[in-house]
């Protein structure tokens, strides 16, 4: 592509044609404040925070949408620019509730940070405020329109990434509000509770439903036996809550922190991920051999499950009947584990540390009680877990590295990669190959299903049997695949779908910020975890083998069906 040269604040910058002034400035190390801008997703020039002077144009221009051209002369720090940005921010602040000390985004809020950066010490415009009701109708997401600055990032993510648009701007002028159709509670619309909007909201207007206090209460109750499981993707992200570089592997520190919070024992969802592979892999083989419904589609991601229930209820019989690893863990914990340690399951409290807001919804689905109790009691997102550690006054940096407890803390590398898009597929292939062919798989890495590409396809050779697979992440990509399946354009045998971009490592409950750059680093860390595990195939997990020997019998046994499989519920589209 052709290069153009422009000057910004007297500095010459060379950049490809088609770039914006904002990109050019960033390249030159010049900082322009932004608010509504979200790379590749929300580039609408709405908030006017990023204005600059462009020589030859009368009005100030929004740098995030203004295209570069040869000889362009831009000034980013003039009295006019400063005054305009100030006024823009003061207007936003004039109808904003000043609740920083009690706000969930205190110290991680873009509005607050900008007010500090621009040195706003007084707001000169009188504000008119509409009072809105806070929507806490779902177990996952809270929406507080009082703090909304109408940047529309949530709308863009929900529409473009998830293909849903559960929220959108309504009304006009002073009455503008970002909300659902007919201003219904979130629980009554087809929001899938993925939480992607909570990742991109610059302020405290969209956030996870906080369950920390319930967990503290359980931990303080001497009558309760409180155990914890940690999702595959949390070990490569939780460090970010404490200022560590994205992509830092913090498994050992996380285990140590959980012990100090009072969880005992500390178990791992990776164990249940291995278990899932045995059940789901067997289900795939069974459907392949006995002419069952194909393609089989994975069922680990609760946002994805809610999506297919709302938008493609006619395809529900393609879903694997396997519960997600989190729910398999809960069911096993309150039966097998309870028996093993001789604890009354009514006294066991299962807490999950998850990258996901939709998991909070999943654990409360009425069918998730096959142990006779609610299988998983509370779900904390990575963010909530991080806050809990801070509340407890634990110094993250000086924590030692500790190991998970036996037996539900034993896992393989295959369980670990569940945290990345393509990981469930790769884990399943590693096991299914050996089960089908009876041979040892030499090359464990299925690179064709790794990476951030939206839809990945591969044909895998099982000793003559050609297995066609596909992997999609984000629900707009899920839509594309499902439409092709419906139209009969593709003949896959097995499809993996995860709701969030990048898979769970980019989940809606992960640390803020989460963006493409950070997702890549987390992904590299996940495959690093896998590489370093002594065992990397789920069916080699000794604790899973023991579970089958002592308790379940074999995959897809009667008991497995009772505890580890589930069914789905069609839901309305609107």
């Amino acid at each position, binding site marked *: 592509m052709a290069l153009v040269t422009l000057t910004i604040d007297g500095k010459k910058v060379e950049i490809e044609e088609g770039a914006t002034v904002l990109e050019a400035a960033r390249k030159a190390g010049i900082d322009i404040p932004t608010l509504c801008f979200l790379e590749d997703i929300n580039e609408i020039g709405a908030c006017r925070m990023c204005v600059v002077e462009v020589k030859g144009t009368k009005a100030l221009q929004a740098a995030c949408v203004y295209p570069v051209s040869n000889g362009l002369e831009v000034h980013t720090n003039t009295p006019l620019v400063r005054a305009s940005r100030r006024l823009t921010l003061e207007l936003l602040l004039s109808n904003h509730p000043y609740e920083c000390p009690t706000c969930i985004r205190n110290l991680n809020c873009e509005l607050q940070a900008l007010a500090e950066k621009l040195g706003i010490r007084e707001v000169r415009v009188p504000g008119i405020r509409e009072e809105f009701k806070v929507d806490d109708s779902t177990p996952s997401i809270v929406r507080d329109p009082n703090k909304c600055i109408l940047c529309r990032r949530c709308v863009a993510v929900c*529409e473009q990434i998830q293909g*849903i*648009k*559960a*929220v*959108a*701007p*309504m*009304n*006009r002028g002073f009455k503008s509000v970002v909300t*659902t*159709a*007919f201003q219904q509670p979130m629980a009554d*619309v087809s929001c899938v509770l993925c939480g992607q909007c909570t990742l991109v909201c610059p302020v405290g207007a969209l956030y996870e439903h906080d369950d920390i206090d319930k967990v503290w209460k359980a931990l303080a109750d001497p009558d309760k036996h409180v155990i914890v499981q940690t999702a595959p993707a949390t070990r490569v992200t939780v460090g970010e809550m404490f200022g560590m570089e994205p992509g830092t592997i913090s498994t050992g520190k996380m285990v140590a922190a959980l012990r100090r919070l009072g969880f005992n024992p500390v178990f791992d969802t990776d164990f249940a991920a291995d278990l899932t592979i045995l059940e789901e892999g067997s289900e795939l083989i069974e459907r392949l051999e006995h002419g069952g419904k194909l393609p089989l589609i994975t069922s680990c991601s609760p946002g994805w499950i809610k999506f297919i229930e709302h938008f493609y209820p006619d395809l529900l019989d393609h879903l694997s009947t396997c519960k997600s690893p989190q729910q398999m863990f809960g069911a096993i914990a309150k039966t097998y584990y309870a028996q093993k340690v001789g604890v009354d399951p009514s006294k066991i409290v299962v807490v999950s540390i998850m990258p996901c807001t939709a998991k909070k919804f999943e654990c409360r689905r009425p069918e998730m009680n096959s142990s006779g109790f609610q299988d998983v009691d509370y779900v904390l997102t990575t963010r909530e877990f991080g806050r809990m550690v801070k509340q407890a006054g634990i110094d993250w940096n000086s924590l030692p590295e500790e190991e998970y407890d036996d037996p539900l803390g034993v896992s393989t590398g295959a369980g670990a990669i569940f945290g990345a898009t393509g990981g469930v597929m790769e884990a399943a292939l590693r096991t299914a190959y050996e089960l089908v062919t009876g041979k040892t798989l030499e090359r464990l890495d299925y690179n064709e299903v790794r990476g951030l590409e939206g839809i990945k396809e591969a044909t895998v050779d099982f000793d003559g049997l050609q297995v066609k697979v596909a992997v999609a992440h984000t629900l707009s990509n899920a839509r594309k695949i499902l439409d092709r399946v419906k139209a009969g354009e593709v003949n896959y045998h097995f499809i993996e779908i995860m709701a969030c971009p990048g898979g769970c490592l980019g989940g809606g409950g992960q640390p803020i910020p989460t963006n493409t750059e950070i997702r890549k680093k987390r992904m590299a860390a996940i495959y690093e975890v896998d590489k370093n595990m002594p065992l990397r195939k789920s069916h080699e997990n000794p604790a899973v083998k023991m579970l089958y020997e002592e308790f379940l019998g074999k995959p897809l046994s009667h008991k497995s069906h009772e505890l580890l499989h589930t069914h789905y519920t069609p839901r309305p*589209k*609107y």
Partner: protein
Amino acid sequence: MGEQACACEEKYKEIEEAIGEYKGDRSALIPLLQKTQRLFGYVPRAVQVKIAEELGIPLTDVYGTVTFYSFFSLKPKGKYNIQCCNGTACYVRGAPKVIERFEKELGIKAGDTTDDGKYSLQVVRCLGACGLSPTIMVNQDTHARMKPDKVPEVLKKYV
């Protein structure tokens, strides 16, 4: 609530047929909403859902459009349509206070209809009765020289 069972199956049939002609065509959104508004005097929720379904667009797009343009309304006009003049003469002689009192008594904002479907409240430019300002009209009746305190009295006449 608000949306009584419509004695207007005909209208639903007509609009459904119109919508059916535009299956999958996003650009038909505004024309279809205009047609609905003309036909019903408002845009019923059921029709909005139908439009979203048939055009294959999110319901938020339909509802967002309806609430963006003042041409569309979400509720049918009430049994009693109260029009408060806020033209210059009425404004100077206290119309805003009268409007405010109506809003308070009815528990709705101007432009809205009470949930029982009885009263709609509208603010209009000029009713052409400046000599009698502030003026309001309830359906066809004119009430002149309004004061906030006269509002409950007026409402009592329309039950």
